[in-house]
Protein backbone atom coordinates (compact mmCIF):
# COMPACT_ATOMS: atom_id res chain seq x y z
CA UNK A 1 0.00 0.00 0.00
CA UNK A 2 2.86 2.34 0.87
CA UNK A 3 4.45 1.56 -2.49
CA UNK A 4 1.16 2.18 -4.28
CA UNK A 5 0.80 5.51 -2.50
CA UNK A 6 4.35 6.53 -3.37
CA UNK A 7 3.77 5.50 -6.99
CA UNK A 8 0.58 7.56 -7.15
CA UNK A 9 2.31 10.61 -5.69
CA UNK A 10 5.11 10.07 -8.17
CA UNK A 11 2.67 9.88 -11.07
CA UNK A 12 0.93 13.01 -9.84
CA UNK A 13 4.15 14.93 -9.53
CA UNK A 14 6.08 13.77 -12.59
CA UNK A 15 6.38 15.57 -15.89
CA UNK A 16 9.06 18.22 -16.29
CA UNK A 17 9.67 20.16 -19.53
CA UNK A 18 7.19 21.39 -22.16
CA UNK A 19 4.28 19.06 -22.88
CA UNK A 20 2.17 19.12 -25.98
CA UNK A 21 -1.10 20.80 -25.14
CA UNK A 22 -4.08 19.46 -27.05
CA UNK A 23 -7.53 21.01 -27.32
CA UNK A 24 -8.94 18.90 -24.50
CA UNK A 25 -6.18 19.88 -22.08
CA UNK A 26 -6.55 23.55 -23.01
CA UNK A 27 -10.31 23.30 -22.57
CA UNK A 28 -9.74 21.93 -19.07
CA UNK A 29 -7.54 24.88 -18.15
CA UNK A 30 -10.07 27.34 -19.60
CA UNK A 31 -12.78 25.69 -17.51
CA UNK A 32 -10.55 26.03 -14.45
CA UNK A 33 -10.16 29.77 -15.16
CA UNK A 34 -13.94 30.02 -15.55
CA UNK A 35 -14.45 28.25 -12.23
CA UNK A 36 -12.01 30.53 -10.38
CA UNK A 37 -13.46 33.69 -11.91
CA UNK A 38 -17.03 32.64 -11.11
CA UNK A 39 -16.12 31.80 -7.54
CA UNK A 40 -14.28 35.10 -7.23
CA UNK A 41 -17.36 36.94 -8.48
CA UNK A 42 -19.54 35.20 -5.87
CA UNK A 43 -17.09 36.21 -3.14
CA UNK A 44 -16.90 39.78 -4.46
CA UNK A 45 -20.69 39.92 -4.45
CA UNK A 46 -20.74 38.90 -0.79
CA UNK A 47 -18.12 41.57 0.01
CA UNK A 48 -20.24 44.20 -1.75
CA UNK A 49 -23.29 43.19 0.28
CA UNK A 50 -21.44 42.83 3.62
CA UNK A 51 -22.27 39.09 3.74
CA UNK A 52 -18.80 37.81 4.59
CA UNK A 53 -15.83 38.43 6.89
CA UNK A 54 -12.68 40.31 5.88
CA UNK A 55 -10.46 37.44 7.12
CA UNK A 56 -12.32 34.89 4.98
CA UNK A 57 -12.11 37.10 1.91
CA UNK A 58 -8.38 37.64 2.40
CA UNK A 59 -7.50 33.96 3.03
CA UNK A 60 -9.86 32.42 0.47
CA UNK A 61 -9.16 35.12 -2.11
CA UNK A 62 -5.44 34.38 -1.73
CA UNK A 63 -6.05 30.63 -2.13
CA UNK A 64 -8.08 31.20 -5.30
CA UNK A 65 -5.34 33.49 -6.59
CA UNK A 66 -2.75 30.77 -5.96
CA UNK A 67 -4.87 28.36 -8.00
CA UNK A 68 -5.03 30.93 -10.83
CA UNK A 69 -1.24 31.15 -10.62
CA UNK A 70 -1.04 27.34 -10.96
CA UNK A 71 -3.15 27.47 -14.13
CA UNK A 72 -0.92 30.23 -15.46
CA UNK A 73 2.15 28.12 -14.73
CA UNK A 74 0.64 25.16 -16.62
CA UNK A 75 0.01 27.39 -19.64
CA UNK A 76 3.48 28.96 -19.60
CA UNK A 77 5.58 28.45 -22.81
CA UNK A 78 8.16 26.33 -20.96
CA UNK A 79 5.40 23.95 -19.77
CA UNK A 80 2.89 23.88 -22.62
CA UNK A 81 3.61 23.50 -26.32
CA UNK A 82 0.29 24.00 -28.16
CA UNK A 83 -0.82 21.73 -31.01
CA UNK A 84 -1.05 23.51 -34.33
CA UNK A 85 -3.91 26.00 -34.50
CA UNK A 86 -4.13 26.39 -30.75
CA UNK A 87 -1.44 29.02 -30.14
CA UNK A 88 -3.86 31.94 -30.23
CA UNK A 89 -6.29 30.25 -27.90
CA UNK A 90 -3.48 29.38 -25.52
CA UNK A 91 -2.47 33.05 -25.45
CA UNK A 92 -6.08 34.02 -24.76
CA UNK A 93 -6.33 31.49 -21.90
CA UNK A 94 -3.07 32.78 -20.41
CA UNK A 95 -4.23 36.39 -20.61
CA UNK A 96 -7.51 35.50 -18.94
CA UNK A 97 -5.76 33.53 -16.17
CA UNK A 98 -3.43 36.51 -15.58
CA UNK A 99 -6.32 38.91 -15.41
CA UNK A 100 -8.31 36.64 -13.04
CA UNK A 101 -5.26 36.25 -10.81
CA UNK A 102 -4.84 40.04 -10.62
CA UNK A 103 -8.53 40.59 -9.79
CA UNK A 104 -8.44 37.88 -7.12
CA UNK A 105 -5.40 39.58 -5.60
CA UNK A 106 -7.34 42.87 -5.43
CA UNK A 107 -10.28 41.02 -3.88
CA UNK A 108 -8.02 39.57 -1.19
CA UNK A 109 -7.03 43.10 -0.15
CA UNK A 110 -10.46 43.68 1.46
CA UNK A 111 -11.82 46.22 -1.04
CA UNK A 112 -14.62 48.69 -0.29
CA UNK A 113 -18.18 47.69 -1.21
CA UNK A 114 -18.04 49.80 -4.33
CA UNK A 115 -14.71 48.37 -5.46
CA UNK A 116 -15.96 44.86 -4.70
CA UNK A 117 -19.04 45.44 -6.85
CA UNK A 118 -16.80 46.54 -9.69
CA UNK A 119 -14.54 43.48 -9.22
CA UNK A 120 -17.61 41.28 -9.29
CA UNK A 121 -18.53 42.68 -12.70
CA UNK A 122 -15.01 42.18 -14.02
CA UNK A 123 -14.77 38.60 -12.74
CA UNK A 124 -18.20 37.74 -14.17
CA UNK A 125 -17.06 39.06 -17.54
CA UNK A 126 -13.81 37.05 -17.33
CA UNK A 127 -15.80 33.93 -16.43
CA UNK A 128 -18.00 34.41 -19.49
CA UNK A 129 -14.95 34.85 -21.71
CA UNK A 130 -13.31 31.73 -20.27
CA UNK A 131 -16.53 29.79 -20.83
CA UNK A 132 -16.79 30.87 -24.44
CA UNK A 133 -13.12 29.95 -24.93
CA UNK A 134 -13.70 26.50 -23.39
CA UNK A 135 -16.82 25.98 -25.52
CA UNK A 136 -14.86 26.83 -28.68
CA UNK A 137 -12.35 24.05 -28.06
Amino acid at each position, binding site marked *: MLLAFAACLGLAGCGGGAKTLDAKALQKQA*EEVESLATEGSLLAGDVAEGDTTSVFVRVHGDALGENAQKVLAKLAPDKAKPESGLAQKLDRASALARSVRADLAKLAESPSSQAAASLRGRLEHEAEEAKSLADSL
Partner: protein
Amino acid sequence: MKRIFGLALGILAAIGGFVDIGDIVFNTAAGATFGYGLLWVVVLGVGGIITYSEMCGRVAAVSKRPVFDAVRERMGLSTGLVALIAAQLVNLMTLAAEVGGIALVLQLLSGLPYRALIMLAVIALTVVIWVLPFSWIERVFGYCGLCLLVFAVGALKLHPDWGEVAKGFVPHVNTTSPLVYGYFAVGLLGAAMTPYEVYFYSSGAIEEGWSPKDLGLNKANAMIGYGLGGFLSFALMITAGALFLPLGINPELLGTVALGAEVPLGQIGLILALVGTLFAVGGAAIDTCFSGAYNLAQFLGWEWGKYRTNAGAPRFTITWLVLLALGFCIVMTGIDPVMLTEYAVIFSAVALPFTYIPILLTANDRTYMGRYVNGRVANTLGLFYMLVILFIAVTAIPLMVITHMGQG
Protein backbone atom coordinates in the same frame (compact mmCIF):
# COMPACT_ATOMS: atom_id res chain seq x y z
CA MET B 1 -31.16 13.77 29.07
CA LYS B 2 -28.96 10.76 29.88
CA ARG B 3 -30.32 8.97 26.82
CA ILE B 4 -29.57 11.96 24.63
CA PHE B 5 -25.98 12.04 25.92
CA GLY B 6 -25.87 8.28 25.41
CA LEU B 7 -26.21 8.88 21.67
CA ALA B 8 -23.06 11.00 21.64
CA LEU B 9 -20.79 8.08 20.62
CA GLY B 10 -22.78 7.50 17.45
CA ILE B 11 -22.95 11.20 16.70
CA LEU B 12 -19.22 11.69 17.20
CA ALA B 13 -18.46 8.59 15.15
CA ALA B 14 -20.80 9.88 12.46
CA ILE B 15 -19.71 13.52 12.48
CA GLY B 16 -16.03 12.61 12.80
CA GLY B 17 -16.16 9.58 10.55
CA PHE B 18 -18.71 10.43 7.94
CA VAL B 19 -18.06 14.12 7.66
CA ASP B 20 -14.29 14.54 7.77
CA ILE B 21 -12.33 16.88 5.52
CA GLY B 22 -12.27 14.36 2.67
CA ASP B 23 -16.00 13.77 2.85
CA ILE B 24 -16.76 17.44 3.00
CA VAL B 25 -14.75 18.08 -0.14
CA PHE B 26 -15.68 14.74 -1.83
CA ASN B 27 -19.43 15.22 -1.36
CA THR B 28 -19.21 18.81 -2.53
CA ALA B 29 -17.10 17.84 -5.55
CA ALA B 30 -19.56 15.03 -6.39
CA GLY B 31 -22.47 17.49 -6.24
CA ALA B 32 -20.61 20.06 -8.32
CA THR B 33 -19.78 17.42 -10.96
CA PHE B 34 -22.91 15.24 -11.11
CA GLY B 35 -25.53 17.33 -9.33
CA TYR B 36 -27.81 15.09 -7.31
CA GLY B 37 -26.94 11.97 -9.32
CA LEU B 38 -24.87 10.32 -6.58
CA LEU B 39 -27.27 10.76 -3.65
CA TRP B 40 -28.22 7.08 -3.89
CA VAL B 41 -24.59 6.10 -3.28
CA VAL B 42 -24.66 7.98 0.04
CA VAL B 43 -27.77 6.00 1.00
CA LEU B 44 -25.97 2.77 0.08
CA GLY B 45 -22.92 3.79 2.15
CA VAL B 46 -25.02 4.78 5.16
CA GLY B 47 -26.75 1.40 5.03
CA GLY B 48 -23.37 -0.34 4.97
CA ILE B 49 -21.86 1.52 7.89
CA ILE B 50 -25.04 1.12 9.97
CA THR B 51 -25.09 -2.63 9.27
CA TYR B 52 -21.47 -3.18 10.27
CA SER B 53 -21.34 -0.68 13.14
CA GLU B 54 -24.39 -2.30 14.70
CA MET B 55 -22.66 -5.66 14.29
CA CYS B 56 -19.34 -4.61 15.84
CA GLY B 57 -21.10 -2.66 18.61
CA ARG B 58 -23.09 -5.82 19.41
CA VAL B 59 -19.91 -7.93 19.37
CA ALA B 60 -18.26 -5.40 21.73
CA ALA B 61 -21.25 -5.28 24.09
CA VAL B 62 -21.73 -9.06 24.25
CA SER B 63 -18.20 -10.48 24.04
CA LYS B 64 -16.26 -7.38 25.24
CA ARG B 65 -14.06 -7.81 22.16
CA PRO B 66 -13.16 -4.86 19.95
CA VAL B 67 -12.72 -5.22 16.18
CA PHE B 68 -8.96 -5.73 16.13
CA ASP B 69 -9.20 -8.66 18.54
CA ALA B 70 -11.45 -10.30 15.98
CA VAL B 71 -9.16 -9.37 13.10
CA ARG B 72 -6.13 -11.01 14.75
CA GLU B 73 -8.02 -14.12 15.78
CA ARG B 74 -9.94 -14.67 12.52
CA MET B 75 -7.15 -13.83 10.08
CA GLY B 76 -4.18 -15.28 11.93
CA LEU B 77 -1.04 -13.45 12.99
CA SER B 78 0.53 -12.81 9.57
CA THR B 79 -2.61 -11.71 7.70
CA GLY B 80 -3.65 -9.83 10.83
CA LEU B 81 -0.31 -8.03 10.75
CA VAL B 82 -0.90 -7.02 7.12
CA ALA B 83 -4.34 -5.73 8.14
CA LEU B 84 -2.77 -3.84 11.04
CA ILE B 85 -0.12 -2.19 8.85
CA ALA B 86 -2.71 -1.25 6.20
CA ALA B 87 -5.06 0.14 8.84
CA GLN B 88 -2.31 2.13 10.54
CA LEU B 89 -1.08 3.63 7.27
CA VAL B 90 -4.56 4.72 6.26
CA ASN B 91 -5.17 6.03 9.79
CA LEU B 92 -1.98 8.04 9.71
CA MET B 93 -2.72 9.53 6.29
CA THR B 94 -6.20 10.45 7.45
CA LEU B 95 -4.95 11.89 10.75
CA ALA B 96 -2.39 14.06 8.95
CA ALA B 97 -5.07 15.29 6.57
CA GLU B 98 -7.43 16.10 9.44
CA VAL B 99 -4.70 18.04 11.28
CA GLY B 100 -4.07 20.01 8.09
CA GLY B 101 -7.83 20.51 7.73
CA ILE B 102 -8.09 21.94 11.25
CA ALA B 103 -5.29 24.39 10.42
CA LEU B 104 -7.01 25.38 7.14
CA VAL B 105 -10.29 26.13 8.92
CA LEU B 106 -8.52 28.03 11.70
CA GLN B 107 -6.78 30.06 9.02
CA LEU B 108 -10.11 30.91 7.35
CA LEU B 109 -11.38 32.04 10.77
CA SER B 110 -8.29 33.86 12.05
CA GLY B 111 -6.06 34.72 9.10
CA LEU B 112 -2.96 33.50 10.98
CA PRO B 113 -0.14 31.64 9.15
CA TYR B 114 -0.98 28.05 8.16
CA ARG B 115 2.10 26.37 9.63
CA ALA B 116 1.71 28.10 12.99
CA LEU B 117 -1.89 26.89 13.03
CA ILE B 118 -0.80 23.30 12.32
CA MET B 119 1.28 23.49 15.49
CA LEU B 120 -1.59 25.06 17.41
CA ALA B 121 -3.95 22.33 16.15
CA VAL B 122 -1.64 19.54 17.35
CA ILE B 123 -1.14 21.17 20.75
CA ALA B 124 -4.89 21.69 21.13
CA LEU B 125 -5.62 18.07 20.16
CA THR B 126 -3.02 16.79 22.62
CA VAL B 127 -4.46 18.85 25.47
CA VAL B 128 -8.05 17.87 24.63
CA ILE B 129 -7.25 14.14 24.42
CA TRP B 130 -5.05 14.27 27.52
CA VAL B 131 -7.38 16.27 29.75
CA LEU B 132 -10.96 15.61 28.70
CA PRO B 133 -12.71 12.38 29.63
CA PHE B 134 -13.92 10.24 26.72
CA SER B 135 -17.57 11.19 27.27
CA TRP B 136 -16.80 14.92 27.09
CA ILE B 137 -14.74 14.51 23.93
CA GLU B 138 -17.76 12.82 22.36
CA ARG B 139 -20.13 15.53 23.48
CA VAL B 140 -18.06 18.59 22.63
CA PHE B 141 -17.00 17.46 19.15
CA GLY B 142 -20.16 15.56 18.28
CA TYR B 143 -22.61 18.29 19.22
CA CYS B 144 -20.54 21.28 18.04
CA GLY B 145 -20.08 19.46 14.72
CA LEU B 146 -23.84 19.72 14.34
CA CYS B 147 -23.26 23.34 13.23
CA LEU B 148 -22.78 21.67 9.84
CA LEU B 149 -26.57 21.44 9.70
CA VAL B 150 -26.27 24.98 8.34
CA PHE B 151 -25.70 23.31 4.96
CA ALA B 152 -29.17 21.75 5.17
CA VAL B 153 -30.66 25.21 5.73
CA GLY B 154 -28.49 26.57 2.93
CA ALA B 155 -29.64 23.80 0.59
CA LEU B 156 -33.29 24.70 1.30
CA LYS B 157 -32.63 28.39 0.65
CA LEU B 158 -31.01 27.59 -2.69
CA HIS B 159 -34.34 26.11 -3.87
CA PRO B 160 -33.04 23.03 -5.67
CA ASP B 161 -35.24 21.21 -8.15
CA TRP B 162 -36.73 18.69 -5.72
CA GLY B 163 -37.87 16.43 -8.54
CA GLU B 164 -34.26 16.10 -9.68
CA VAL B 165 -33.15 15.59 -6.06
CA ALA B 166 -35.69 12.74 -5.72
CA LYS B 167 -34.38 11.16 -8.96
CA GLY B 168 -30.88 11.22 -7.43
CA PHE B 169 -32.00 8.70 -4.81
CA VAL B 170 -32.83 6.15 -7.52
CA PRO B 171 -29.78 3.99 -8.35
CA HIS B 172 -28.51 4.68 -11.86
CA VAL B 173 -25.26 5.14 -13.73
CA ASN B 174 -24.24 8.34 -15.49
CA THR B 175 -23.50 7.37 -19.09
CA THR B 176 -21.68 10.51 -20.27
CA SER B 177 -18.65 9.94 -18.08
CA PRO B 178 -19.16 6.55 -16.40
CA LEU B 179 -15.58 6.14 -15.17
CA VAL B 180 -15.48 9.48 -13.35
CA TYR B 181 -18.94 8.70 -12.00
CA GLY B 182 -17.61 5.30 -10.86
CA TYR B 183 -14.61 6.96 -9.18
CA PHE B 184 -16.87 9.29 -7.20
CA ALA B 185 -19.24 6.42 -6.32
CA VAL B 186 -16.37 4.26 -5.06
CA GLY B 187 -14.89 7.21 -3.17
CA LEU B 188 -18.20 8.04 -1.52
CA LEU B 189 -18.70 4.42 -0.49
CA GLY B 190 -15.11 4.12 0.75
CA ALA B 191 -15.49 7.33 2.73
CA ALA B 192 -18.79 6.20 4.22
CA MET B 193 -17.41 2.83 5.31
CA THR B 194 -13.87 3.87 6.19
CA PRO B 195 -12.48 1.34 8.67
CA TYR B 196 -11.40 3.75 11.41
CA GLU B 197 -15.08 4.46 12.09
CA VAL B 198 -15.75 0.87 13.20
CA TYR B 199 -12.45 0.59 15.12
CA PHE B 200 -13.38 3.74 17.01
CA TYR B 201 -17.01 2.75 17.42
CA SER B 202 -16.38 -0.75 18.81
CA SER B 203 -13.54 0.39 21.11
CA GLY B 204 -15.70 3.32 22.23
CA ALA B 205 -18.44 0.85 23.16
CA ILE B 206 -15.96 -0.94 25.42
CA GLU B 207 -14.72 2.41 26.81
CA GLU B 208 -18.34 3.13 27.78
CA GLY B 209 -18.76 -0.31 29.33
CA TRP B 210 -21.61 -1.47 27.11
CA SER B 211 -23.28 -4.77 27.97
CA PRO B 212 -26.12 -6.71 26.31
CA LYS B 213 -28.61 -4.37 27.96
CA ASP B 214 -27.15 -1.57 25.82
CA LEU B 215 -27.97 -3.27 22.52
CA GLY B 216 -30.92 -0.94 22.00
CA LEU B 217 -28.61 2.04 22.51
CA ASN B 218 -26.17 0.43 20.05
CA LYS B 219 -28.87 0.23 17.36
CA ALA B 220 -30.02 3.79 18.05
CA ASN B 221 -26.42 5.07 17.98
CA ALA B 222 -25.67 3.38 14.68
CA MET B 223 -28.93 4.37 12.98
CA ILE B 224 -29.29 7.93 14.29
CA GLY B 225 -25.58 8.77 14.29
CA TYR B 226 -24.75 7.51 10.82
CA GLY B 227 -28.17 8.52 9.52
CA LEU B 228 -27.28 12.04 10.60
CA GLY B 229 -23.88 11.75 8.91
CA GLY B 230 -25.69 10.70 5.72
CA PHE B 231 -28.11 13.61 6.05
CA LEU B 232 -25.18 16.04 6.26
CA SER B 233 -23.67 14.41 3.17
CA PHE B 234 -26.98 14.93 1.32
CA ALA B 235 -26.99 18.58 2.39
CA LEU B 236 -23.44 19.14 1.11
CA MET B 237 -24.16 17.41 -2.20
CA ILE B 238 -27.47 19.21 -2.76
CA THR B 239 -25.88 22.58 -1.92
CA ALA B 240 -23.12 21.91 -4.44
CA GLY B 241 -25.57 20.61 -7.04
CA ALA B 242 -27.80 23.68 -6.69
CA LEU B 243 -25.07 26.32 -6.44
CA PHE B 244 -21.77 25.17 -7.96
CA LEU B 245 -22.87 22.90 -10.84
CA PRO B 246 -24.91 25.53 -12.73
CA LEU B 247 -22.06 28.06 -12.33
CA GLY B 248 -19.33 25.64 -13.43
CA ILE B 249 -17.42 25.94 -10.14
CA ASN B 250 -15.00 23.11 -9.41
CA PRO B 251 -14.59 23.07 -5.61
CA GLU B 252 -11.02 22.20 -4.68
CA LEU B 253 -10.66 24.24 -1.51
CA LEU B 254 -12.24 24.04 1.92
CA GLY B 255 -13.12 27.72 1.62
CA THR B 256 -15.24 26.95 -1.46
CA VAL B 257 -17.34 24.54 0.60
CA ALA B 258 -17.91 27.28 3.21
CA LEU B 259 -18.93 29.63 0.41
CA GLY B 260 -21.79 27.20 -0.22
CA ALA B 261 -23.27 28.28 3.13
CA GLU B 262 -22.24 31.93 2.83
CA VAL B 263 -23.98 32.60 -0.49
CA PRO B 264 -27.49 31.62 0.68
CA LEU B 265 -27.15 32.60 4.38
CA GLY B 266 -24.56 35.38 4.58
CA GLN B 267 -22.01 35.87 7.35
CA ILE B 268 -23.79 33.72 9.93
CA GLY B 269 -23.91 30.86 7.43
CA LEU B 270 -20.19 31.22 6.80
CA ILE B 271 -19.28 31.22 10.50
CA LEU B 272 -21.51 28.24 11.34
CA ALA B 273 -20.09 26.32 8.37
CA LEU B 274 -16.51 27.01 9.49
CA VAL B 275 -17.19 26.20 13.16
CA GLY B 276 -19.05 23.01 12.22
CA THR B 277 -16.22 21.99 9.90
CA LEU B 278 -13.65 22.73 12.62
CA PHE B 279 -15.34 20.43 15.12
CA ALA B 280 -16.16 17.75 12.54
CA VAL B 281 -12.57 17.65 11.32
CA GLY B 282 -11.29 17.90 14.91
CA GLY B 283 -13.55 14.98 15.86
CA ALA B 284 -12.21 12.99 12.92
CA ALA B 285 -8.64 13.73 14.01
CA ILE B 286 -9.43 12.36 17.48
CA ASP B 287 -11.23 9.32 15.99
CA THR B 288 -8.25 8.44 13.81
CA CYS B 289 -5.73 9.13 16.57
CA PHE B 290 -7.57 6.87 19.00
CA SER B 291 -8.23 4.24 16.32
CA GLY B 292 -4.52 3.96 15.58
CA ALA B 293 -3.71 3.55 19.28
CA TYR B 294 -6.62 1.11 19.83
CA ASN B 295 -5.55 -1.06 16.88
CA LEU B 296 -1.94 -1.37 17.93
CA ALA B 297 -2.74 -1.93 21.61
CA GLN B 298 -5.44 -4.50 20.85
CA PHE B 299 -3.24 -6.34 18.35
CA LEU B 300 -0.29 -6.51 20.76
CA GLY B 301 -2.39 -7.19 23.84
CA TRP B 302 -1.49 -3.98 25.69
CA GLU B 303 -3.59 -2.20 28.25
CA TRP B 304 -5.71 0.28 26.35
CA GLY B 305 -8.48 2.75 26.81
CA LYS B 306 -9.05 6.34 27.76
CA TYR B 307 -11.02 5.18 30.82
CA ARG B 308 -7.80 3.74 32.32
CA THR B 309 -6.28 7.27 32.52
CA ASN B 310 -3.14 8.24 30.62
CA ALA B 311 -0.75 6.69 33.16
CA GLY B 312 -2.88 3.54 33.50
CA ALA B 313 -2.28 2.56 29.86
CA PRO B 314 1.15 4.09 29.13
CA ARG B 315 1.88 2.30 25.84
CA PHE B 316 -1.56 3.22 24.52
CA THR B 317 -0.94 6.85 25.55
CA ILE B 318 2.51 6.91 23.95
CA THR B 319 1.05 5.46 20.74
CA TRP B 320 -1.52 8.22 20.27
CA LEU B 321 1.09 10.85 21.11
CA VAL B 322 3.47 9.37 18.51
CA LEU B 323 0.69 9.22 15.92
CA LEU B 324 -0.12 12.88 16.50
CA ALA B 325 3.57 13.77 16.18
CA LEU B 326 3.83 11.79 12.91
CA GLY B 327 0.68 13.44 11.57
CA PHE B 328 2.18 16.82 12.42
CA CYS B 329 5.42 15.99 10.58
CA ILE B 330 3.57 14.79 7.46
CA VAL B 331 1.36 17.84 7.15
CA MET B 332 4.26 20.22 7.88
CA THR B 333 5.89 19.01 4.63
CA GLY B 334 3.30 21.16 2.86
CA ILE B 335 1.26 18.32 1.36
CA ASP B 336 -2.30 19.37 0.49
CA PRO B 337 -4.61 17.95 3.23
CA VAL B 338 -7.53 17.62 0.82
CA MET B 339 -5.53 15.59 -1.68
CA LEU B 340 -4.07 13.48 1.15
CA THR B 341 -7.55 12.61 2.40
CA GLU B 342 -8.66 11.61 -1.08
CA TYR B 343 -5.74 9.19 -1.26
CA ALA B 344 -6.59 7.94 2.23
CA VAL B 345 -10.22 7.31 1.23
CA ILE B 346 -9.22 5.36 -1.88
CA PHE B 347 -6.59 3.29 -0.04
CA SER B 348 -8.97 2.63 2.83
CA ALA B 349 -11.42 1.23 0.26
CA VAL B 350 -8.76 -1.34 -0.67
CA ALA B 351 -8.31 -2.30 2.99
CA LEU B 352 -12.04 -2.63 3.76
CA PRO B 353 -12.29 -6.45 3.49
CA PHE B 354 -9.58 -6.90 6.16
CA THR B 355 -11.84 -5.14 8.63
CA TYR B 356 -15.31 -6.21 7.63
CA ILE B 357 -14.82 -9.94 6.97
CA PRO B 358 -13.70 -10.64 10.59
CA ILE B 359 -16.62 -8.61 11.96
CA LEU B 360 -19.10 -10.64 9.92
CA LEU B 361 -17.50 -13.93 10.99
CA THR B 362 -17.38 -13.00 14.68
CA ALA B 363 -20.95 -11.71 14.72
CA ASN B 364 -21.97 -15.12 13.35
CA ASP B 365 -20.02 -17.11 15.94
CA ARG B 366 -22.38 -18.53 18.55
CA THR B 367 -19.43 -19.33 20.86
CA TYR B 368 -18.90 -15.61 21.43
CA MET B 369 -22.30 -14.18 20.72
CA GLY B 370 -24.66 -16.78 22.24
CA ARG B 371 -28.24 -15.75 21.56
CA TYR B 372 -27.06 -12.37 20.20
CA VAL B 373 -25.59 -13.97 17.06
CA ASN B 374 -26.52 -12.39 13.69
CA GLY B 375 -30.10 -12.96 12.61
CA ARG B 376 -31.32 -13.43 9.05
CA VAL B 377 -31.67 -9.71 8.33
CA ALA B 378 -28.19 -8.85 9.66
CA ASN B 379 -26.65 -11.67 7.62
CA THR B 380 -28.47 -10.79 4.41
CA LEU B 381 -27.39 -7.17 4.72
CA GLY B 382 -23.91 -8.21 5.85
CA LEU B 383 -23.41 -10.46 2.82
CA PHE B 384 -24.81 -7.89 0.40
CA TYR B 385 -22.45 -5.23 1.73
CA MET B 386 -19.56 -7.69 1.70
CA LEU B 387 -20.05 -8.00 -2.09
CA VAL B 388 -20.15 -4.20 -2.37
CA ILE B 389 -16.96 -3.93 -0.26
CA LEU B 390 -15.12 -6.51 -2.37
CA PHE B 391 -16.18 -4.71 -5.54
CA ILE B 392 -14.94 -1.31 -4.39
CA ALA B 393 -11.74 -2.81 -2.96
CA VAL B 394 -10.89 -4.19 -6.40
CA THR B 395 -11.92 -1.14 -8.45
CA ALA B 396 -10.76 1.78 -6.26
CA ILE B 397 -7.14 2.13 -7.38
CA PRO B 398 -7.72 1.40 -11.11
CA LEU B 399 -10.47 4.04 -11.18
CA MET B 400 -8.25 6.53 -9.37
CA VAL B 401 -5.47 6.04 -11.93
CA ILE B 402 -7.69 5.97 -15.04
CA THR B 403 -9.67 9.10 -14.07
CA HIS B 404 -6.71 11.05 -12.62
CA MET B 405 -8.51 11.25 -9.27
CA GLY B 406 -11.85 12.14 -10.82
CA GLN B 407 -10.49 14.86 -13.10
CA GLY B 408 -11.42 12.86 -16.23
